């Protein structure tokens, strides 16, 4: 695989790496026919992000030939090292004119080369590990609720929460009122906590399709990482969610770039023991496991780690929002990527 990024897109790539670094410790690099995909997942499998850069994002994009199994070569590298290359975003913008990334399976290095002004070039030869395909199973079309807003609105909302806050609850009430509240554990003493709640009216959003009152709780840290990227890209952010316990999907789309962040959400309050598994042990999916069995109760996002197509995780939406409602039209163009 070989690709070249020039001009302002170098900074976009850098910002994507920064957002991914908020998710996991390893960066999965996967060239595909549709472009270069950079992915990350956290250790408890409760957050997954994927940035897909279309071939047109690059000045040059060659995915490389498939190997004996018909697959394109993919690898993973240490996030810390990759991030160090793109660490200083202002300096990327000011001094880097070109970035070349090349991955040759036969060589043992991923090469990232930055061309600075004044004829200076920095070449990084990073060691990588081969890896299985990293793919979260989700389908936006099966999410009953959708919100769409400019990133600015959401950034201005989350700025009110302390930086250390772990989880936030997004709720949609009657008449389309959208609220954001810091999540407070049931075990915490009410007299020792401060609750902050922010309400946004429907007209701050570009689209609100929520069939019934609902609220979901997810981790704020990873969400902030995506928001920071979204704000600089000026793209509207869509949030697709369902009942508590099912993953929420945050996405940005434009012809050159597609971004998906999938976050697990806290299951219902009567299953408080499940909340303990929030940062629990990693749930590794073996290649041949049948996913359709018990993962509905799991806090973890199902991760597909092979290329064998597997059934979509959760049962279809008809068990959830059976009543018809003006808001429940399925969203078009959702892709189970």
């Amino acid at each position, binding site marked *: 695989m070989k690709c070249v990024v020039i001009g302002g897109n170098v900074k976009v790539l850098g910002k994507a790496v920064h957002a991914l670094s908020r998710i996991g410790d390893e960066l999965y690099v996967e060239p595909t026919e549709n472009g270069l995909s950079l992915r990350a997942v956290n250790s408890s499998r409760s957050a997954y992000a994927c940035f897909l850069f279309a071939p047109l994002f690059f000045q040059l994009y060659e995915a490389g030939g498939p190997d004996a199994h018909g697959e394109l070569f993919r690898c993973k590298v240490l996030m810390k090292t990759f991030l160090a290359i793109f660490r200083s975003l202002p300096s990327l913008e000011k*001094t880097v004119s070109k970035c070349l990334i090349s991955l040759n399976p036969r060589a043992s290095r991923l090469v990232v080369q930055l061309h600075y002004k004044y*004829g*200076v070039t*920095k070449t990084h*030869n*990073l060691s990588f590990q081969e890896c299985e395909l990293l793919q979260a199973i989700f389908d936006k079309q099966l999410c009953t609720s959708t919100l769409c807003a400019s990133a600015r609105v959401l950034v201005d909302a989350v700025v009110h929460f302390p930086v250390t806050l772990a989880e936030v609850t997004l709720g949609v009430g009657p008449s389309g009122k959208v609220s954001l509240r810091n999540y407070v554990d049931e075990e915490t003493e009410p007299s020792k906590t401060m609750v902050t709640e922010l309400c946004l009216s429907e007209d701050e959003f570009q689209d609100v399709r929520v069939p019934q009152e609902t609220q979901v709780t997810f981790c704020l840290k990873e969400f902030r990482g995506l928001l920071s990227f979204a704000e600089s890209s000026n793209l509207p952010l869509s949030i697709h969610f369902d009942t508590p316990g099912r993953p929420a999907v945050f996405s940005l789309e434009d012809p050159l770039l597609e971004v998906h962040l999938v976050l697990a959400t806290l299951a219902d309050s009567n299953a408080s023991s499940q909340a303990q598994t929030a940062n629990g042990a990693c749930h590794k999916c073996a290649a041949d496991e049948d996913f359709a069995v018990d993962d509905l109760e799991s806090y973890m996002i199902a991760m597909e780690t092979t290329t064998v197509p597997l059934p979509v995780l959760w049962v279809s939406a008809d068990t959830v929002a059976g009543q018809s409602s003006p808001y429940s039209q399925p969203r078009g163009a959702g892709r189970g990527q």
Partner: protein
Amino acid sequence: MPLLLPAGAGAGAGAGAGADGSGARYVLVASLDKARHLSTMLRAVHFRDVATCVATANGLKAGIFQEFVVQEESVTFRINLTILLDCLTIFGTSSLPGTSTALRMCYCGYGYPLTLFLEEGGVVTVCKINTQEPEETLDFDFCSTNVVNKIILQSEGLREAFAELDMTSDVLQITMSPEKPYFRLSTFGNAGSAHLDYLKESDLMEVFQCNQTQTNRYKISLLKPSTKALALSCKVSIRTDTRGFLSLQYMIRNEDGQICFVEYYCCPDEDVAETEL
């Protein structure tokens, strides 16, 4: 030449400092009307607590002093640099326009303390810092006739590079060559290698005189302290000799336009492994 009499009693009195009436005779007197010039330079070499000061008639610092008199052929003493810096900046380190600290530095010779007279806004402070036995100064025996390769670069090209050096690498490898890659800095860290290449035609390159391809490795821990001098400098000269010894000369221009130089010497790392491409 007669021994210099203390300030106020003879010709060549320094600016602004109070007279020392003790009748002591000085072997070294240096006066400076902006102590900051000296403290800035000393900070550039402040990576160990002690420094050996060698003053000769051609002392490196002679260019910035208004008065610099040395009685003996060379005056050497060891002094705690941290304390010296603290004294030089005793009136504070911020530089308000129109104010400056005047300095008169005096030394009577072996066994005597280094006396600093500092004055700002009519307030005089006298500091006496005990001096120590001078230790053997390393003589790298780096002479210009043995220089094989020489480059002068504008410092701004190296500052970020040095700040972002992969510190998991034990060594910094420097390649200088009349052919590609011309000038290359390489590190070999935990996650892989990194190479920073400068073209000889680069706008940052002021002088490029490389006769022979040389690749030398230096312990990165030895070179890291030089980043302080790099940050203050406008230009740096990088030279290697036939043994692979490295000389870094940083040209620092202070706010009055005076030029000073800070030099670093480093010997190559003994265990040289195969260069990783």
